């Protein structure tokens, strides 16, 4: 059975001046353990797709089902909990919290899960060790390089042990060498830990390395 099912998803953005149909009747399924890349020109709706898949945004039409749960049936509280337990996000511009240290940033998902301080520290240190940042625990995001920031973000995405990782152009702000390191990490998360990954990318080579490529144009799937 598919882990993620998007069924006839449309997303219409309405502002005062214009209406944008960011997604137009999109169907997509992702199986457990798959590494899927999403490609397409800028503005074609990739981020919108990922946000809807990650339950950060609601579709105008259609249904999202993740691991058997229908997203539209979840209330605010269950939604927060569902995101916390099942989804890990990685963004192009990292979105770390500047006022918190590296260790604190990684602990964020664990705080909302209600895990005690000592166990949080241990869990966060363990994943930071895996991404090679155990010597930067007390640093703040502004004191790190882009590659280091993205590794912190990856640590934060996986620390709560979610089944699904959603990555929106995770290497978009990094040079190719650092980008390759990040890709390595993602592949390890997929093959070693069996996590399902959906990644938006502009890089054909990176996409070619994944299990499947989904292409978009103007809010529609073309492949």
């Amino acid at each position, binding site marked *: 059975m598919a882990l993620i099912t998007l069924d006839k998803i449309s997303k219409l953005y309405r502002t005062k001046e214009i209406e944008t149909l960011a997604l137009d009747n999109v169907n997509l399924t992702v199986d457990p353990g798959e590494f899927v890349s999403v490609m397409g020109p800028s503005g074609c709706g990739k981020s919108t797709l990922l946000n809807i898949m990650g339950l950060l945004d609601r579709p105008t039409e259609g249904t999202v089902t993740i691991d058997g749960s229908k997203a539209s049936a979840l209330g605010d509280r269950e939604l927060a909990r569902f995101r*916390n337990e099942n989804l890990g*996000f990685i963004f192009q511009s990292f979105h770390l919290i500047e006022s918190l240290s590296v260790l604190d940033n990684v602990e964020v998902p664990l705080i*909302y899960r209600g895990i005690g301080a000592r166990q949080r520290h241990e869990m966060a240190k363990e994943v930071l060790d895996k991404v090679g940042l155990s010597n930067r625990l007390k640093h703040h995001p502004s004191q790190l390089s882009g590659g280091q920031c993205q590794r912190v973000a990856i640590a934060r995405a996986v620390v709560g042990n979610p089944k699904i990782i959603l990555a929106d*152009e995770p290497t978009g702000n990094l040079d190719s060498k650092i980008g390759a390191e990040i890709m390595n990490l993602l592949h390890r998360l997929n093959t070693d830990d069996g996590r399902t990954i959906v990644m938006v990318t502009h890089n054909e080579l990176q996409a070619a390395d994944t299990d499947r490529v989904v292409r978009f144009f103007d809010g529609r799937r073309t492949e």
Partner: protein
Amino acid sequence: MIRIALKNLWSQRKVYGWLALELIILSILAWVIVDPTVVRIYYANQPLGYDSNRLAEISIDSYPSTSSKYSAEAADSASVSDNFNRILNTISSFPGVESATVVSYEIEGHSSWNGGLYTDTDTVSVTGIMYLQGTPFFATYGIKPVDGHSLKELQELGYPSDGIIISESTAQWLGKKPKEILGMTVGENQTEKRIVGVTNDVRPKSVGPNNTCMFIPATKENLSIEYFTIVFRLKDGIDPAKFVDENRNALNEKLSIGNYHPVELRTYADKSAELQYTQGYTNANRIGIFMAVFYLINMALGVIGTVWLQTRRRAGEAGIMKAFGARPHHITVTLIWEGIILTSVTWILGSAIYLQYALRKGLATARYINHWYIPKTWVTDFWTHFGIVALIILALMLVAVVIGIWIPARRIARVDPAVTLKDE
């Protein structure tokens, strides 16, 4: 969430520094406003020590010899004394009247008699109240004995003229329990007086605290009987305002005897309202409360402004937090914790600064004149007083700050993560 709040505060210390400074200044100002207001409200709500319901009074004047209504034959002392007695009897037996007494420097009057009592070592200011011997003064006011005497006994104590009756806090000043103090002598106006009775504490003016009081049973000769006031209690179930309205004419007529004629009939409530008005008490209370409200609004606005300015950044953070499992409630609580921590710290600093002043100049008190003995309460105990007012100020500051944060926090907490997490 407290930990995150602490870290946010620390990382935003430049922004919050200004707010903290404002809150420190406001908490010092809070002391200046709240302390006297709290003390005044506390005293205003203490028991009067007598029963002010169903009390009314009538003042009687005499025509001067220059008046056309003056009667020379009614002016000799025997007639005056006789007419005085007739007036008192008339009012005492008037339908609806339970009892009546004649007082000089009455309770809740404009003028008061600030006397003094002294021992070998000390002097205390007391409010003196004189009443006519033989009239049921204590029963009319509802002032009770606390020295073991019955009300009837208390009524008859004090004659002949060297006896005085004191209030409980006067006994407290003299360092004795009410029962132990009976028979003790104190100096009063160059004479020795014997303490013959002790009553509960009384607030001679509703605009002030309960004072040390002395009650002196005076003879007619000691009182000025050209002009005097009769205070009377109405029977149970009679409304004083109605009584005064309905009986004004009848009383005017019946109490115009010889040269005597009534000049003013009014309820105790009217008398009290007038006193409070002329002494600016009601105004002082209103100003105090107004200032406190103004100050709270100011504080809330300062906080709203500061948090509002950060809305964009905080909304960004909130979006991230939500993507990783925070509920709107978590976001609001974290922001409010920031406010609580900031308030508590600035409250401690502001209060510590004010304490330096208070240790030298004292806290708000009921009396700023020396020699008044103020009965021991939390107000007179420095540290209890400081602690209670400090906690009231903390509570007020927290209300203002929490409201000030909550208003913008609701907006921040409601942001849509998809909007704030856009990658440009």
